[in-house]
């Protein structure tokens, strides 16, 4: 099981994501804005990040950039965005290897994506170990 951080300023979305991922046995931690998420990422070992793009204090794109560049993390990231300018976010995040999910999204689809990404990470780790 993995530790998943959900960074989302809307409490309802945060809560429903937490219910679905917790049902799969993951440990879910929440952050109401980007700055809070950054603090959690510094203090805890997070296996997967689910982040909104537009958040108070620190945007999701800045948060992911910091995690990738400053923390040099290659852990999977899922960005959920309500922005209609998807292409702009794509161009900003292209080099960071992230998954996008547009709002409104299906929590079932989110769960499946999380599982796929975690499985892929595990396979890569296994492959690395075998080599």
């Amino acid at each position, binding site marked *: 099981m993995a530790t998943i951080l959900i960074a989302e300023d809307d*409490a*309802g*979305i945060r809560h429903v994501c937490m219910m679905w991922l917790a049902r799969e046995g993951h440990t879910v931690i929440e952050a109401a804005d980007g700055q809070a998420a950054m603090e959690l990422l510094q203090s805890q070992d997070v296996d997967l990040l689910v982040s909104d793009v537009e958040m108070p204090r620190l945007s999701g794109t800045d948060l992911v950039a910091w995690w990738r560049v400053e923390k040099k993390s290659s852990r999977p990231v899922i960005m959920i965005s309500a922005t209609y300018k998807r292409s702009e976010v794509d161009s900003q995040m292209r080099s960071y290897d992230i998954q996008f999910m547009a709002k409104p999204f299906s929590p079932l689809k989110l769960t499946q994506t999380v599982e796929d990404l975690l499985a892929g990470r595990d396979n890569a780790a296994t492959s690395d170990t075998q080599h």
Partner: protein
Amino acid sequence: MSWSLTKRLKARAWEQIPTSLTMVILAVYVGSAGAMAYAFSHKRDSQIKTSVVGIIGESVNRCADSIAMVGAHDGEKLEEFLKRFGASGMWDSLRVINADGDIVASLRPDEAGTRHWQAGQLKRNWPSEMVTEWENQGQALLERVTMRTPIADAGERLMLEGVVRLDSILPPQSTFDRLVLMIFGGSLVLLLLVCRALRRHLQPLVSIGSNLVRHKGRLQQELCSLRLANESNAVAQAWNQLVSLFEDTCEAAAQVSATRELSAALERNATSSVIEAVNLVPEGMMYLGEGHRLRYANKMACRLLGIEFEPARERKGSTARVLWDLGVSELGQKIVEAIKSARRGEHFETHSTTVRGDEDSAFRVRIMPVVHQERGAVVLITDESQRAKAEAAREAFVAQVSHELRTPLTNIRAYTETCTEFDDPKVQAECFNVINKETRRLGRLVEEMLSRSQLDIGTMNIRSDDVDLLALLHEAVRDLRATAENMEIELVAELPSKLPLLHADRDKLAVVINNLLGNALKYTKSGGRISVACEADEGGVRIKVIDTGIGIAEEHRSKIFERMYRVDSEEVKNRTGSGIGLTTALEIVQAHGGDIQVSSKPGEGSTFTVELPLRAAAVERGS
């Protein structure tokens, strides 16, 4: 010499022309007649004189031959012979001269023995000669003809000299001369009569000429008075007919002139109207003539470029030079660059570019070639600053609406799916509650969006009805309480037990209250407090939304109701928002005849007071 003096002299000369002409004609005629008479007379005299001279020569020669034949060598015989020969009386002198120059014999006895010539003056071989001399006698010059011829077969060399005075043998005046003079005199008299008659006939023309000169400036008015009274005179009749014709012509010319003036006035008015119309065009318009010289710039172009241009004064020089001389703004320099860019493409159709001015201003510059009488270009400058701002606002609004709509939609979809996937009744109940809340949230957003759209196009309709304001405020607080609790903010309604019914648009007022509460929630930190209060009196109601949020600095308070305005601070930037919520609220309240006041202390909180009349005033908005 001044022009007026020249004119007067010309006028005087014009008046004198008939008299001078007469004198000239007379002088020419007299000269010609005199010359003819003299020529005839001179010819006749010459012919007579030639004949006389021939007779004289012949007589002297025969006399000399006779002397030689009779052998008259001594003085007495010679003198007797000379007397008989000279008995005709034509000879002034008749003498025989020897080689020494002494007179041997003469018609005048006293001359005999006197020296006539100096010795040696005679030539050895005497030729016959004839000499014509003039002798001054008193007032008259007398012509003398002297004939000398040698006497042949004489014992000594002798010469016969005969002198004749022509006036003594020629008649003083012939009948022919008298006839010529009579004809000449008669012609002269006749000519004078003709000139007198001619002058009398020319007098009207002289009068006309004088009047034409004197009344040149008032020709048309004076011509009527120039009709000549002497109708029997052909010239006067002709002149009077001419005056009539001239009057008709003047009348026709006056009509043509009036028509032309009317046409010119209409043309001027048309041109003036066109210029006035072009000046009213809300676009800058410039016309660049040959060589792209600035020929015209309307008021808007002058305003945009920051120049002053007088349409009547064409500015010489290239556009760049002219604009530079006029001290154009930075925008003007950029437009000049755009014009230069268009000129580089010689056969450009229409060159269009957007020029960014100061701050957020934007101008669209279109340069269209004109190939008519001269090669030029029309430059249209459209101020698109407002359109650019509106476009930016639209994009921000769409982004905001997209975000705001997708969030409740995400909740509704996620909780609906959760409701079907989770069997726990508590979870399902929670899901229904969230779905209900988000659906209402979605409804408010749609209403706000519609209001926003109506405000943008100026067609917001206020559907006034009796509104239970107390219920509306309680409902708004209830809807947002869950959100406030999630944010750990205390949201309370401090409302009286009773409020008067308000005659207003319920849905629009709901948007106002929701926007103000949403704004308060956005800028109030966790642990803060938001209260909604309301008071009423005869004038209306005052709804207050009081928060303990970050507050608003004084310099921003007058601007927070401007569309898209957001305070430039870290605390505001960290909160999502488009900057249109307060604008929408204010416009709705103003549409009801009310207003929104704001008081605030940075760091302590803000109070928004909505003032509404009990009956919404009918405020006309837009079209």
